[in-house]
């Protein structure tokens, strides 16, 4: 039953009613936990982004001029480590996922609320340990390849333990979500009546629980190498540095699907809502999420084509790598088909969602050069690779995250964002992003390696342009954050359903009451029944 689009007075606070530090610190409310994750991850988005700006400042000139090479190496390591472990992995699942999964399936909370708050504090504790390691900053790159990482002076052991804890938080959250989706769906909500955002987070959670333990073990072993003197990864002790790479990438490849699947899930919710048309190919999108999760585990060796693996391994990993292109393509085609003959509104969530498709397709297509053996040997570890992963992770996940924030801001806060400001921010971000990162494709193709504190002067033009782009990108993000903060206090009161969506969160007030639903709804149809119905039986 769709709620009226009636405005609610700003005095209504819903789950935000209770005040006080402990009402947040020890909360069992998934919505509050989600908000805490969002604020924490957004903080580290800004921190990691700041380090990115410092990198781009240094790279304005071919020689070390602001920072020494040692400091530069620490800058890019911190940039990668902070953004990957403290922002991009947890932001959508632990942030928006925690807030919305129970509501979207018609439940009052996740399966294990106490485990949920414990996961958050483990996350925070892990962050503190990681920050502690900055006393001797890491200079290994976020990939920590041995033997260098086992021998460097930096506080690798402390960082390993911090990352282990952050990973623990990730595993427990994934576990919580899997059980929640299996056991707590409202009556009548079969698997094929779930919103596709839930399918996406379900697939993500499976990856999280299967892959994260492997990186946990890898970091434990790295710490053990340094502390106990064992040598699994050290050739001087009979070990093998490539073994480290296998373990590292066995997690770190699937983790990019942890990063992208939730973002894709957000896009899959936004497009039908703003096209007023059912999502095209519900089952195809649901299955493609699972397929991506599965295929993601088979391809880790494509990070290691030049590492010294056997040619047979190279070939196997290359052909398997192309298999991930297919489910990705299925989603892209289905989103676009949803637009066909829709009634399209270009509100800010939709603009970000469409931008996601644009930038992510570029990122994904450039992955083909890296998956193909002949061209990978050319562009591996160059700025071409850096551009590829920034297009997929920032042009993809971060844009999807921004889209989700704009979409659900009214629901979470009870206030509307300023649409004009949102669109201005978007335009600046789009321009800045492309200038910053497209030039990297060129620099990399021309041969500029990554992780270079100093470079040959012939690469300076691209680097200067890219750095200018970074400043523009930062300005756009600043405008966006200004919009968030300002709207928290001055935004128009949000109705329950500002966008006319059909998923369950739009049937409760903005912000939702602590108990989510007065009565648990009984579900009789799928959530994408927009437009003229032929038979109206609610089946996808």
């Amino acid at each position, binding site marked *: 039953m769709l709620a009226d689009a009636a405005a609610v007075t700003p005095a209504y606070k819903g789950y935000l009613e209770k005040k006080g530090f402990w009402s947040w610190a020890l909360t069992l409310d998934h919505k509050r936990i989600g908000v805490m994750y969002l604020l924490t991850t957004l903080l580290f988005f800004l921190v990691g982004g700041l380090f990115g700006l410092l990198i781009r400042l240094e790279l304005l000139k071919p020689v070390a001029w602001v920072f020494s*090479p*040692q400091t530069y*190496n620490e800058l890019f390591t911190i940039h990668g480590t902070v953004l990957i472990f403290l922002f991009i992995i947890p932001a959508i699942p632990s942030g928006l996922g925690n807030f919305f999964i129970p509501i979207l399936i018609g439940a009052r909370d996740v399966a294990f609320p106490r485990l949920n708050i414990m996961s958050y504090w483990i996350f925070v504790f892990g962050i503190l340990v990681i920050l502690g390691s900055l006393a001797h900053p890491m*200079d290994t*790159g976020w990939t920590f*390849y041995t*033997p*260098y990482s086992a021998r*460097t002076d930096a506080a690798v052991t402390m960082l390993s333990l911090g990352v282990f804890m952050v990973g623990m938080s990730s595993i427990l959250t994934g576990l919580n979500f899997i059980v929640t989706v299996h056991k707590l769906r409202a009556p009548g909500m079969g698997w094929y009546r779930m919103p596709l955002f839930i399918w996406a987070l379900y697939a993500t959670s499976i990856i999280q629980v299967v892959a994260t333990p492997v990186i946990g073990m890898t970091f434990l072993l790295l710490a053990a190498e340094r502390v106990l003197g064992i040598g699994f990864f050290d*050739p*001087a002790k009979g070990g093998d*540095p*490539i073994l480290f790479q296998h373990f590292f990438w066995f997690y770190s490849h699937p983790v990019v699907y942890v990063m992208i699947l939730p973002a894709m899930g957000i896009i899959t919710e936004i497009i039908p809502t703003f*096209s*007023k048309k*059912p999502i*095209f*190919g519900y*089952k195809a999108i649901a299955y493609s999420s699972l397929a991506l999760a599965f295929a993601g585990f088979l391809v880790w060796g494509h990070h290691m084509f*030049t590492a*010294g693996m056997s040619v047979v391994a*190279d*070939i196997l990993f*290359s*052909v398997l790598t192309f298999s991930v*292109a*297919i489910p990705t*393509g299925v989603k892209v085609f289905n989103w676009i088909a949803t*637009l066909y003959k*829709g*009634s399209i*509104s*270009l509100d800010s969530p939709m603009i970000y969602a469409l931008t996601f*498709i*644009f930038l992510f*397709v570029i990122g994904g*297509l*450039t992955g*083909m050069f890296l998956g*193909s*053996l*002949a*061209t990978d*040997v*050319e562009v*591996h*570890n*160059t700025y071409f690779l850096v551009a590829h992963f920034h297009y997929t992770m920032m042009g993809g996940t971060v844009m999807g995250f921004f889209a989700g924030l704009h979409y659900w801001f009214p629901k979470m806060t009870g206030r509307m964002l300023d649409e004009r400001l949102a669109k201005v921010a978007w335009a600046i971000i789009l321009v800045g992003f492309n200038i910053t990162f497209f030039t990297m494709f060129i620099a990399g*193709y*021309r*041969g500029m390696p*990554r992780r*270079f*504190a100093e470079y040959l002067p*012939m690469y300076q033009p691209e680097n200067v342009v890219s750095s200018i782009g970074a400043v523009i990108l930062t300005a756009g993000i600043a405008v966006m954050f200004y919009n968030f903060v300002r709207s928290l206090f001055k935004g128009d009161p949000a109705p329950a359903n500002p966008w006319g969506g059909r998923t369950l969160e739009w049937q409760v007030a903005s912000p939702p009451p602590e108990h989510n639903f007065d009565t648990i709804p009984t579900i009789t149809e799928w959530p994408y*029944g*927009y*437009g*003229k119905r032929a038979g109206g039986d609610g089946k*996808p």
Partner: protein
Amino acid sequence: MNNAFNMTGAASQTAGQIDNVFIFILSIGIFFFLVTQGALIYFVIRYKKRKGDPDRETPYITESRTLERIWIIVPSILVLAIFYYGYVVFMKVKTPIQGASEVNVVASQWLWKFRYPDGRVVVNELRVPLGKPVQLTMTSTDVIHSFYVPDYRVNQDILPGRYTYLWFTPDKTGEFVVFCNQYCGVGHSEMLAKIIVMPQADYDRWLTGAPAAGGAPLAGRGEQLVKNSGCLACHSTDGTLKVGPTLKGLYGSSVALADGSAVLADDNYMKESLYEPGAKVVKGFPNVMPTFKGVLTDDDVTAVIAYIKTLGPAGHMEPDEKAETNAGTHR
């Protein structure tokens, strides 16, 4: 250094083929990009709801099995083609070339040592004759490095405790830059080498030629050696602190060592530092300097010392009263 990095600068026999694979993938990529983004932009414009209009009734289209099949099968065929083409060319790069002359490459933090078939070792410079296949047999003495020649479109990691290989046949003369392409520490971006491809006749002449020009002043020869042997990656000549101590003012000074003692930087200290760098580590600096035994002959060392003398307080030694005399530490 020749700028051969332009898009048509492929300088080895397989490099051009790799470029062709790149163009193949690029074409397919651009095609998909235009199709998808074109459709996206077209649909958004065509079906945009005008402000103030009531919501148009949209058709209840939920799926099409046919379309799903098409956009699974067609991309599958295309990506398999991309994989196959990439694989075929990759095999050409990875297949050992019969009759290739073998050069041993030893990568260390942060320089390259090339050992030629005739036994000589040269730092940071690889000379090869045009058109003849070369096999690089590579290992590292410390951490993982990588041999990357953009002009040859090839890249291969170098591991400690193992050998990895690279084959190429240069088909253009000139100088081509080699980068280290696997992060290896603070000197990673300084770790450059160059491949100098010469016509066969010139190469033969170089191979049999005398090492140094006879009449060059010793210090001048020393300066060349310092420039070409990778010293400047870690030592400056102007007082800047880098990975290692500066060479400026070094000769004749009193050097504080890590073990608390002090030593006079005389000729013997210099020679020992070049051949056995770990014997006397300077306080405040890491013990990471590689040895130049087998790389610099005794004559070379003399020339290097002569050059370093020109960087410091001129001429004489000033033994410091507080320093240990070197009498007991000479070999």
